[in-house]
C-alpha cells in the first residue's frame, strides 16, 4: 500500500476493524476495553503513519497489534485483580459470610474455565502468549505469525509448544485446586 492517508485508514478500519474488535473481546471479555483496543490500533496509524510503511498483510498486522494490546490489558487487569484480592484478604470477613459466587452453576463453570485460561495466559511470557493467541484464537499460519512477530517459523513452533505445555500444566493444576467448587 502507498503512504497511509486518512481515507486509507478508514478503509482499513472497515475491512479489519471487526476482526480486531473480536480478537480483543475474546481475550478481555469486556466490550469497553475491547473498543479501547480497537481505537488504539487505528489511532496509531493516524498518529505515526510512517511507522507502517513496510506492512504487507494488513489484516494480520492489525489483528496482531490488537491481540498484543489486549494481552497487555489482560496482564494489567490481572495485576489489579491480584492487588484487590490481596487487599480483601487483609480485611476481616463479616461474621457468617462466605465468598459464594452467584449465578447458575453451569454458566459459572464455563465462566470459571474461561477465567482460568485468561489467568494462565497472563502467566506466559509475552511472546508465548502472542504466539498462542495468534495460532489458536486467530488461526494464523506459522508463517503468518513468524512474519508478524518478526521471528522465524522455527521459533514459532518452539514457542507454541512451550506455551501449550505450560498452559496444559496450569489448567490441570487449577482443576485440582478448583475441586472444592464441584457440585456433588
Amino acid at each position: 500500500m502507498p503512504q497511509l492517508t486518512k481515507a486509507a485508514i478508514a478503509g482499513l478500519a472497515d475491512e479489519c476493524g471487526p476482526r480486531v474488535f473480536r480478537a480483543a473481546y475474546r481475550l478481555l471479555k469486556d466490550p469497553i476495553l475491547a473498543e479501547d483496543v480497537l481505537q488504539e490500533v487505528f489511532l496509531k496509524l493516524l498518529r505515526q503513519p510512517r511507522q507502517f510503511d513496510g506492512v504487507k498483510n494488513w489484516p494480520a498486522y492489525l489483528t496482531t497489534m490488537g491481540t498484543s494490546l489486549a494481552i497487555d490489558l489482560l496482564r494489567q487487569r490481572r495485576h489489579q485483580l491480584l492487588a484487590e484480592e490481596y487487599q480483601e484478604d487483609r480485611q476481616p470477613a463479616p461474621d457468617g459470610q462466605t465468598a459464594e459466587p452467584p449465578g447458575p452453576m453451569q454458566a459459572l463453570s464455563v465462566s470459571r474455565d474461561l477465567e482460568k485460561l485468561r489467568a494462565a495466559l497472563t502467566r506466559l511470557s509475552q511472546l508465548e502468549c502472542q504466539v498462542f493467541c495468534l495460532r489458536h484464537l486467530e488461526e494464523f499460519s506459522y508463517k503468518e505469525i513468524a512474519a508478524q512477530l518478526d521471528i522465524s517459523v522455527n521459533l514459532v513452533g518452539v514457542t507454541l509448544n512451550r506455551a501449550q505445555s505450560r498452559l496444559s500444566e496450569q489448567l490441570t493444576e487449577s482443576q485440582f485446586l478448583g475441586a472444592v467448587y464441584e457440585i456433588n
Partner: protein
Amino acid sequence: MKSTDSLEQHVQQFKAQQPSDVMTQAAMARLQARLSAEPMAESPHLGLWQQINQWIKRSVRIPTWQVGGSLATVGLIALLYLGGGASHPAFAEVVEKLKQISTLQYTGTMYSNGQATMKLRVYYQAPSLVRTEFSPAMDNLDGPATINLMDTASGKGLILMPGPMMALPFDFGHQDSPEDDPLYWLEALKQYQGEVVTRDGGLIDGQATTLYRIEQSGVRTSIWAANDSQWPLKVIVTASGEKDQEVFKLEADLTFNQPLSPELFDFSAPGYHVGQPD
C-alpha cells in the same frame, strides 16, 4: 481428562465468545467517528538520527535470528566469525584451531534483557549438522526439552517435541530473508576484517586464558582461549539495543572434537508423529 484435552476444551470455549453484531457495529461506528475527528499526523521523512536508530534496531535482529533460527548457531557462528580475517598473531592461532573443528558441543544460558530465559545444549557436527536442546523453562529444567535439528547444507530443519512425541519439519532455504538464512550469516561473518581486542582472560578450569573480543553491528563476541593449547573454552555473545541496554546474551562453555552419536542428528525422528507446520 488429559491436560491437552482440557486445554483444547478451554480454547474452544474461548473461541466461542463473540461480541454481538450490534456491539461490533456500534464499536465500528464510534471508531469511524473518532478517526474522522482525529487529525492526521505529519509524516516527514526520517531524519538522520532516526535512520541511525532504525539501523541499530535492524542490527539487533542478528541475535533475534540466532534465537529464532537456531540458538545452536549463535555460538557456532560466533566462532566461525572469528575464523575470518584474523589479525592478532595469537588470535590467528585460535582461528587455526577453529578450522580443525569436527564437532562442537556446548551448554549455555540465554538471557534477554538481563533475565535468564532458557538453558540450551548444542551439538554441532561439521560441516552442517546442528542439534539444539532447549530447556522447557528456566523454572522447569527437568521437563522434556524441545529439540531443534538443522542441516544448514540442505536448509532442512526439524523441531522435535518429546512431550507429545510430535515432529515438525521446516525449511530455512534461500527464499528466506538474510536474517533467517544461517548460511547468509555464516558467509557474512566470515568476511569480518575488524579489530580484535586482546586481554588476559584469567583462569578458567585452572587454565590460563586470553580473552579476544570482536564487535560488529552491535553484536559483541568475547572468547576465552587456553594459552597452552589455544583451544577456546568459553564464549559470550551479547547484543545491545538502544541506550546500550543489553538485550541479548548467550554464555556458553565449549567442548571440541568429541565424537557425537549419529542418532543425535537423525532426521527420521523414530517414534515421533511427523506433522506439517500448516
